[in-house]
């Protein structure tokens, strides 16, 4: 593999150089901030202002707070919040998949000439800011709002329900509503890429449409499903505003709310940073699975 000619050596550097902007981006906007969070989590407090002072030298880091926070996760309230967050994100992601997969499938396979139109329609809600869309839900879900009016009219519910009174289902619904389009787009891309002839081959060999879907389309869209899930789960884990707007009850508190509380406080910044790092650790496990699965799929594709 070792290069001999000058031309080869030049070429060896040309292509990796294209990665430089991305690498720079990663270093400046991810690694440096992440290091800063670690430096705050393991840093000290300013004696006059009580604010967190980052300590940049890892040799002087004080990991004590990690022990405290980890202890709270395993024995205290923080564990409940982490579990609740995982449950909300898990359920919301599954629901998003159940809602998003048929939509992506339809647009990729059966929308014909109107494909672009449907894609634009899916993205239309994004012309309105997230905050505005959530505030609209607040109005819809109020005790005398349209949701209760319609459910009452249809006879689904006799009594109006206090959707905004700290209900898990409302928060999960908000998460699904907020993030489902981000799942649809990568899924659409994956489904759109599937070679039609593979499905025709399955049909020719006697598979029913359902079996063809199960054994051809679904496995071939697996990477799209994973990519879409990763894209929506990462921001969901850190989401706090959906909860703030739609619930505001201790019953539905998520990790993002906890981080917001501490980061905006006087003496709790280090704790907020620590919870952030631990949340990132949890998310990193999911990412690792995703990357591992992508690597395996790439390897299999090469064989």
């Amino acid at each position, binding site marked *: 593999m070792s290069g001999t000619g000058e031309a080869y050596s030049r070429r060896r550097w040309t292509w990796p150089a294209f990665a430089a902007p991305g690498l720079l981006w990663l270093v400046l906007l991810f690694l440096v901030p992440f290091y800063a969070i670690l430096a705050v989590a393991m840093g000290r*407090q300013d*004696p*006059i*202002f*009580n*604010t967190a002072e980052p300590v940049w030298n890892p040799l002087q880091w004080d990991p004590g707070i990690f022990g405290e926070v980890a202890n709270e996760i395993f024995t*205290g*309230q*923080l564990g*409940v*919040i982490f579990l609740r967050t995982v449950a909300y994100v898990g359920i919301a992601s599954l629901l998003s998949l159940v809602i998003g997969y048929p939509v992506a499938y339809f647009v990729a396979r059966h929308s014909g000439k109107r494909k672009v139109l449907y894609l634009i329609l899916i993205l239309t809600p994004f012309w309105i800011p997230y905050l505005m869309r959530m505030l609209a839900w607040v109005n819809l879900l*109020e005790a005398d709002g349209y949701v209760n009016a319609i459910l009452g009219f249809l006879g689904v519910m006799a009594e109006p329900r*206090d959707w*905004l*009174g*700290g209900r898990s289902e409302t928060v999960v619904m908000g998460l699904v509503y907020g993030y489902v389009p981000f799942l649809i787009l990568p899924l659409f891309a994956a489904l759109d890429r599937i070679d039609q002839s593979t499905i025709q081959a399955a049909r020719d060999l006697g598979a029913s449409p359902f079996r063809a879907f199960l054994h051809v389309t679904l496995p071939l869209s697996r990477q799209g499903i994973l990519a879409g899930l990763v894209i929506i789960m990462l921001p969901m884990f850190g989401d706090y505003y959906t909860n703030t707007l739609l*619930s*505001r*009850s*201790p*019953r539905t*508190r998520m990790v993002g*709310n*906890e981080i917001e*509380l*501490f980061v*905006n*406080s*006087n*003496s*709790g910044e280090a*704790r907020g940073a620590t919870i952030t790092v631990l949340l990132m650790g949890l998310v990193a496990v999911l990412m690792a699975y995703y990357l591992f699965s992508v690597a395996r799929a790439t390897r299999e594709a090469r064989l």
Partner: protein
Amino acid sequence: MSRRRMIRLSASAVITAQLLAACGDSSEGSSGSGGGVKIGTPENPVEQPLFDDNPGIESDLEPEDGPLKLYNWADYIWPRVMKDFSEEMGVEVELTTFYNMEEATRKLRTGDLQFDVFFPTAEVLPKFVAGKILQPLNHDYLPNLSANVWPSLQDPYFDVGSRYTVPYTVYETGIGWRSDMVDTDIESMENPWDVFWDPQFDGMAGLYDDYRETIGVGLYRSGNNDINTGDQAALDQARDALMELVDLVNVRYTIDGAYSGMPEGKFGLHHSWSGDVVGAQYYFPKGGDPSVLRFLWPPKSETSTAGGYISNDSLAIPNNAEHPVLAHMFINYLLDEKVALKNFGWLGYQPPLNGIVPDRLVEEGYVPENVRSAIIEQDDFSLGQIPVQLAPEVDSRWLDAWSQVQSG
């Protein structure tokens, strides 16, 4: 209108949360703890130190040409007041806003930003003085301070002699409710704070999303009026009391529940800043009747010994101000009765000036008769509890308790 108040309040929630500087034991505070920070308490008022390298300005200087740069909470001054000053003095007035005291602290500490007038809370003052972020005031430029301001606030516990600050607004934290949704006689309860624990208000009770204010409600509920305590057992008790509220009344923690949630009927009962209740009249939907609003600051109840928070926000001049003379003149301008009253009509938070008395505020329509109880009088400062800066380890205990309350 609603937006400004919402921004201001969301900010003030966070603020109030952090400002209070209470130290667990006042002896530590008044003797000055870490880094020469002198924290006063109502029992142990302190004079803030002066430093040779931070002398303040000479008397009888001409005002600079401007522009005058203000650093304030969002929507915490009527733009008209700035405009009038600008025209009167022939200078530009520029406003920069911050979201909470932490943000302001971080930015001012860098020394890279230059502002002429800053609006700190009472609790952060000790550390701002110790960190030499503020300059001492020259009272020669502030005749309105001794002429108009409540005498007790000319000598506040955190800054005896008003060396670094003058008061801007005062507020109390009490209980707001709608008489058409709540028929309990809260005014004659033995402990008015207990009303939040009454299961008949299931689904319509709210408290502020603010650890410093709301842990205080837990303390009052357990009969403890020491709202600057660092005692873990007391904090545990307050925490447990608040945690009961989740199952009892499905409590919600909000910032806008008092001034907008109650008028809209989402809450019948809410933890309330006095300024929120005064402003709530503008938030009733069309056809709504603002006269159903009520407010009680428990220390004023005749049948109760329960406490309530009271404090003030301040005006100060950063030590790197480029236009300190103009800044003094602006502060003096805000302490003028006419100007202050105009500003109050927009702001809802009351300036502590001698001429602004309850009867006048009601007669001239600034405050509706039914929430007259939200008007603050000078003597109230001896009835209620003033939150002071918490020592760092105490502050952590409060935050911990709050985070547990919040996680149900």
